[in-house]
């Protein structure tokens, strides 16, 4: 047995990256999120689990104001990142999304070269003054996305020509290129085969060293494998939030127990 594992798994609970208080989300008359309070820790993978329609993706999308793009969606409550209110009038959502990156369910590379996919964000945010600087950012991002070795010889080939798993890692590289602090992932592996899934999961574990990762997943085993903290959502409520090992061995709420043991959908 590796005695270091419990230490390695330990989460530094002192540093709260994201704090959400009294959060409510409405789509028209329908309430999708009901009074959710949660503190998400820095350098931690936090998994949101729950049946379809439970509000987990909706809540995730509150964290980089993706819900702003939906007309009928209203968000109430306080969302703080490093203590600053992200819904404050002074906050530019575009800048916010550079700081809070997102990876989606289906790999969605731009119809551009691998290089341009990654370079796009740094360019529009003016992060590189020279071509050499941009090259460096692209290489570093592709390395962080654990795909550099596979694409370094064909950086100018189209991103859409990669396999599904490679495309998803390219999208992760693209998301980290703007040096975000938080990485949101909405079902990042649901379109991938088991090997690509394992590669992305391994990547998520590495990304934790630099980012706060929040992942929405339908696969409870994936949540169990990659996260240190797990939040269970049900019918718009945050039912239970705790250390992943505890949630999967001794959940406190019977609804959590029913869901993770396959008794309610």
């Amino acid at each position, binding site marked *: 047995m590796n005695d270091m594992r419990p230490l390695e798994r330990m989460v530094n609970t002192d540093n709260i990256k994201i704090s959400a208080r009294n959060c409510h989300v409405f789509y028209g008359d329908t309430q999708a999120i009901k009074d959710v309070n949660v503190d998400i820790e820095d350098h931690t993978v936090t998994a949101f689990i729950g049946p379809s329609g439970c509000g987990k993706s909706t809540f995730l999308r509150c964290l980089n104001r993706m819900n702003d793009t939906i007309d009928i969606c209203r968000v109430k409550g306080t969302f703080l990142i490093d203590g600053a209110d992200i819904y404050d009038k002074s906050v530019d959502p575009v800048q916010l999304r550079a700081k809070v990156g997102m990876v989606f369910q289906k790999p969605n590379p731009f119809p551009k070269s691998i290089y341009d996919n990654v370079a796009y964000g740094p360019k529009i945010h003016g992060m590189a003054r020279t071509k050499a600087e941009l090259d460096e950012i692209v290489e570093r991002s592709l390395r962080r996305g654990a795909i550099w070795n596979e694409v370094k010889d064909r950086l100018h080939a189209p991103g859409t020509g990669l396999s599904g798993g490679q495309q998803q890692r390219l999208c992760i590289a693209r998301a980290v290129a703007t040096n975000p602090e938080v990485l949101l992932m909405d079902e990042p592996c649901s379109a991938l085969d088991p090997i690509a899934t394992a590669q992305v999961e391994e990547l998520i574990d590495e990304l934790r060293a630099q980012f706060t990762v929040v992942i929405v997943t339908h696969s409870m085993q994936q949540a*169990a494998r990659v996260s240190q903290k797990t939040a269970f959502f049900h019918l718009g409520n945050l039912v239970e939030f705790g250390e992943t090992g505890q949630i999967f061995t001794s959940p406190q709420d*019977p609804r959590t127990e*029913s869901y*993770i*043991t*396959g008794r*309610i*959908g």
Partner: protein
Amino acid sequence: METHMTQEPHIARVFDRDLEAVQAIIMKMGGLVEDAILGASEALTARDEELAAKVRKNDAQIDALEDQVNTEAARVLALRAPAAGDLRTVLTVMKISANLERIGDYAKNMGKRTGVLAQMPAVDGTDGSLRRMAKAVQLMLKDVLDAYISRDAELAEDVRQRDREVDQMYNAIFREYLTHMLEDPRNITPCMHLHFIAKNIERMGDHVTSIAEQVIYLVTGEFPDEDRPKEDSTSFAGVDGTP
């Protein structure tokens, strides 16, 4: 099989059947082990070699059931990736079956020693206390199996506390045998065998206690605190038998 299910069934019903099947094996093992304890005790009291042989022979059945539990549990772990209460069910059936198997071994060993003791003159007044001790352990086992099937942590805790009575009985027997051996060296051989039997029964009580702790973990998700009073003081006994 009337396994007490604390919850609604799984969406995959076959998972319920898997879990119930493995727990049914545990109950079957439990019944056989109870019989083994009673049989071994009765064989000893009556110096019934035939019954003692039967206890020894029946142990193979208990061992086979333990293998079956392990196979089924490994299967459920591999195929279902159980979580929460389901996971605790699988973990506890593995440990409980190991405890039951050990208790079966102790009963079998009692059967072997009974075969030897039957060839010797009886040591006066020693059988009654062994029989009472075996009965106490068998009742603890019965109750802990009930606690398991009804997911009753309180009853399990009660069983756990009762082990101290078994320990006290063992202490008394230990002193009694020392006295017999000091009185007459011809008592040494039978008393050594009888002492091993007493120790076997005391160890059975420890295994029943371990099962009780598993039941508490199964129900509550936490192991009980290590505050159980231990009464077996014979490890510190001097030659005069007064610890």
